[in-house]
């Protein structure tokens, strides 16, 4: 963290402090952005946008220890607003999903890997808010209270969103495991 980097002054000092923060934390934040969006390029876009907003608010963020939380909050809210605004109706084609590309390249063909790919595909299908809750809880290991602060909602809402997300994933996995019923050929 950059808490010890000195007080945020005007101009160059503030920029230097911000730059140090970006250099130190971007890789980790990018991972979170990727898990939230499920798309490499969108993740980079989202992180850039979130960091730009953070840069503009840099002077107002008094607690330097909470910058990660601030950036995460901006990422999640920005992603939800993008999703609401215009990308909801889009159906990407002509692009191989990243996970499937790895599988196609024969990186790991074990049953576990296939299951994790299936899980990743299901995760990408969750609504962005539910996905954000899942990522913050199971990847960032945040408490319900911290997630609620990040998302700007109550802990109760976090609990219900997490419950819904897990239920969707469980149902989808059970459906995928169900035996396929072969059509009977008697009517031919």
């Amino acid at each position: 963290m950059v808490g010890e980097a000195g007080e945020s002054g005007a101009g160059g000092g503030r920029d230097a402090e911000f730059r140090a923060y970006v250099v130190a934390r971007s890789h980790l934040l990018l991972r979170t952005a990727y898990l939230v969006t499920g798309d490499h390029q969108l993740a980079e876009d989202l992180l850039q946008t979130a960091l730009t907003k953070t840069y503009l608010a840099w002077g107002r963020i008094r607690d330097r220890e909470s910058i990660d939380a601030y950036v995460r909050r901006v990422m999640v809210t920005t992603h939800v607003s993008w999703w609401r605004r215009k990308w909801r109706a889009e159906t990407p084609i002509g692009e191989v999903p990243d996970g499937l590309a790895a599988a196609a390249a024969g990186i790991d063909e074990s049953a576990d890997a296939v299951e994790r790919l299936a899980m990743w595909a299901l995760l990408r299908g969750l609504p962005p808010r539910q996905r954000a809750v899942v990522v913050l809880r199971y990847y960032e290991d945040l408490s319900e209270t911290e997630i609620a602060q990040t998302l700007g909602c109550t802990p109760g809402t976090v609990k219900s969103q997490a419950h819904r997300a897990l239920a969707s994933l469980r149902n989808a996995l059970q459906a995928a495991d169900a035996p396929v019923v072969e059509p009977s050929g008697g009517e031919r």
Partner: protein
Amino acid sequence: MNADVETQLRATLEEQAGVMERMDVGLLADRVMARGRARRRRRAIGAAAAAVFVVVALVAVPAWVSGTHAPVRPTMATQLPEPSVTGRSAVPSHRAIASYRQVLAWFQGLPEAQGPVSFTGDPWGVLEIVPGDTSNDADESHTVTRLRATGQVLMTGKPRGAALDSGRHRVAVAAAVPDPKAGPSLTITLMVFDADTGRMLSRVSGLDSGTRVSGWLDGRVVLDVYASNWANRVAWWDPDAPEAAPVDITAGRVLDVAESGHRILVEGPGARCSQVWEVIGKPHQALEECGMRLVALSDDGRRGFIDGRYGIAPAMLDVWSGAQVALKLPGPVSVASARWSADDRVVLSLTVWGLKDGVTVVCEPDDGSCARVVPSP
């Protein structure tokens, strides 16, 4: 079951987070701060403009009510102070000034756009490039965009030029996209669409990362391939034979393409001069060797617009029937790029020393008068 799902969930998230490639964080910091400063500047300008508007309204409304309103001034563009022309009359043009969107369309080598164009290259709205950023940044290098046709995303990437084949109504679009086989580096994908239906006609991937679409010529897409150490080259690709690789025409950088005239204006490698190449027949040959600095070529390839900074003698103008323009701007000027528009005007993007942002002007090649174009909000 919940515990199983949670365990699997953690493993999946850890694994997926691990595949996210590393990025150049120094570059990221620079970009973010540049964007932040630009946004702050825009806000300040917006606030100042709003304040000015209020003041003007306070003054103008009572004057208008009393019947003494001031003459209306154009809002989209500002006439540059006293443009002077060498060897030509300096009668100011009374033609309508281009909108910023039209200028963008012209830069893509397209005819004047009808109505709003979200993709600066498709007046029919079949194909659009959706900015991947909600800010108003015009700087494409900061945004990942989506190329969308008829509601479907065709690909995501950073745009690398687009151009319309006016003869057969085809649009060529290039974009830098990540290649899963090539690791973190970007490669270029070039696609050609039917401009009327949005159907993809052909596609080639894996082109050099410095490739841009510059225009159409003789049914082929003209490509500008940037390389370091002045090894730039001009190539073209035949979308009717998509399996064939682009073929090099000459060394240098494409400045403009004259589609009807079958000519390309090329800046020679390592030299601040330009040559006009005729690409009909074999071998392709340079019609004009270095000697003048042309920056734009008319569609028929017979007229060139000269960068007057080099003090070209008026006699040279006879060759190309161009006009020299001496713009009065607060500092030395260099031409970043130029285009001859479909309605016979020349669009110049200028870099002015002392000004942070570039200046775009639209000039009349006949009389040399120019008007400055102001980006629409």
